[in-house]
């Protein structure tokens, strides 16, 4: 008489069946988080540079321009992500040609993160000792040299920590994007775990998200210590 499979064996079998889907969703999530972090860092960096140039204690103060940027950043940050996701569908379609899937999610994720990154980096840049900037100016450095040779390198360790903040925030947002067909672990958790009552899928998805947060933070902490 064949032995009935143990519950452990059953669980293992079930996990094996789910693995391809969990793996694919994980990769989708990483893909979304990586590219939206990357693009928002680029754009947010440019934004932060504009803000420290034009800001009240900036290298080239332009109060009018700064006020516009400041208000725009606050507006962008106060916009609920779920609304933004829907509001910029035309832009998403224009750029990616579609509105569903993880590639399409990168657009709203990036747009939502740009003002956030701008503010984080502005704060990092402002933390650089003003005396050091003054010294650079006293030796004849121009604004571009001050930004790329002084401010950016001096702020780099703090920026690395904020990259972790950014990536983890985007990880959370990507789960939300999943809710409206964005793909990734959030999508998986909702489709199977919530809508089809497959609680174990939801638990696996959440566990992987927790793991990802831990890894992102640890990697950034490692580089922070190395750079300091």
């Amino acid at each position, binding site marked *: 008489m064949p032995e009935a499979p143990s519950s452990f064996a059953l669980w293992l079998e079930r996990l094996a069946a789910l693995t391809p889907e969990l793996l694919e969703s994980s990769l989708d999530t990483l893909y979304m988080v990586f590219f939206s972090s990357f693009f928002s860092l680029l754009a947010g960096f440019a934004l932060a540079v504009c803000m420290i140039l034009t800001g009240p204690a900036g290298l080239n103060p332009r109060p009018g321009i700064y006020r516009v940027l400041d208000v725009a950043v606050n507006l962008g940050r106060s916009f609920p992500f779920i609304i933004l996701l829907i509001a910029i569908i035309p832009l998403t379609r224009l750029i990616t040609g579609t509105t569903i899937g993880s590639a399409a999610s990168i657009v709203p994720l990036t747009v939502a993160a740009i003002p956030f990154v701008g503010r984080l980096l502005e704060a990092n840049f402002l933390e650089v*000792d003003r*005396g*050091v900037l*003054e*010294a*650079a*100016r*006293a*030796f*004849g*450095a*121009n604004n571009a*040299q001050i930004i790329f*040779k*002084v401010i950016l*390198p*001096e702020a*780099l*360790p703090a920026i690395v920590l904020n990259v972790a903040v950014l990536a983890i925030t985007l990880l959370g947002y990507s789960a939300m994007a999943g809710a409206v067909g964005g793909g990734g672990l959030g999508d998986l958790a909702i489709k199977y775990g919530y809508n089809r009552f497959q609680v174990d899928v939801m638990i696996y998805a959440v566990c992987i998200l927790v793991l990802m947060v831990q890894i992102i933070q640890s990697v950034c902490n490692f580089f922070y210590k190395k*750079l*300091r």
Partner: protein
Amino acid sequence: MIQVENLHKRYGERQVLRDISLQVEAGEIFGIVGHSGAGKSTLLRCLNGLEKYDSGTVVVMDQEVGSLAEKKLLTLRRRMGMIFQTFNLMERRNVFENVAFPLEVWHTPKAGIRDRVAALLRLVGLEDKAGERPANLSGGQKQRVGIARALALNPEILLCDEATSALDPRTTLSILDLLRDINARLNLTIILVTHQMEVVKRMCRRTLILDNGLARGTGETAELFLAPPPGLRRLIHDEYAHISQGVNIRLGFPKEIAREGIISSMARSLDLDFSIVGGSLERYQEDVLGFLVINVLPEHLEKTLDYLRARKLRWQVLDDGQPEDCHA
């Protein structure tokens, strides 16, 4: 080298510099001294255009700083080094890279940077610290790095903003000696801003005394401190504790008689008693000058003053801590 005329500057309502004029000759060490908030750091920053001014002219090496276009201003700054109270080194660059910074800014080739930085670190005595981060250095070492960095571009003028104020007395002396050595060796013009009176006395042949944005006195350092113009004494003299009866007289000993036993011979020849209230020895560049505050009874005052006049001593009668009569 530097001519400043009728310089005015205000921050909003507050007038920080009022009608400042000064001249600095090539190769001299010029002092700007005053209490904190007197406007001396602002004045220094007007010289290299880090601060703008409202009216007046600042001519540095034949160029009027306020009317220079950005490019020209950067080129002028290239010829002026600057060191700071807080050193202002980049924490993430090591000593070598900090000193190399001005050279990088002006696109010096790599090999040139290596040789120049090595020579500079030798000059300031830090050749063994090239790989250290500033965080691992003492205050005096950090200021040496600052000096090496300031000299990297072979400047003609060195601006020192409270360069020794964050250092202990011994380190201060070693930094001052280094500055004086550089001044002599490289014929570098040095402008020294400080609130430490001893520093200007030790270093500067000529000094400007700044108080609340106003130039309160300018000229030979020794003259200023030995025979301060009225209104200035309280600024530059420590106030002496005094005895309620009698009159306090502050004596200054010029260099020729600083070492003679002037006090005991005065007591002997006048045959009267006086008490010594305070005194100090101060170093003016190469000379040591003495100061003594003595207390005499009012009825002996004229006799004492006659003696002092005959000996051509510098003296002032201090009344209630406020100097009122003076003889230089």
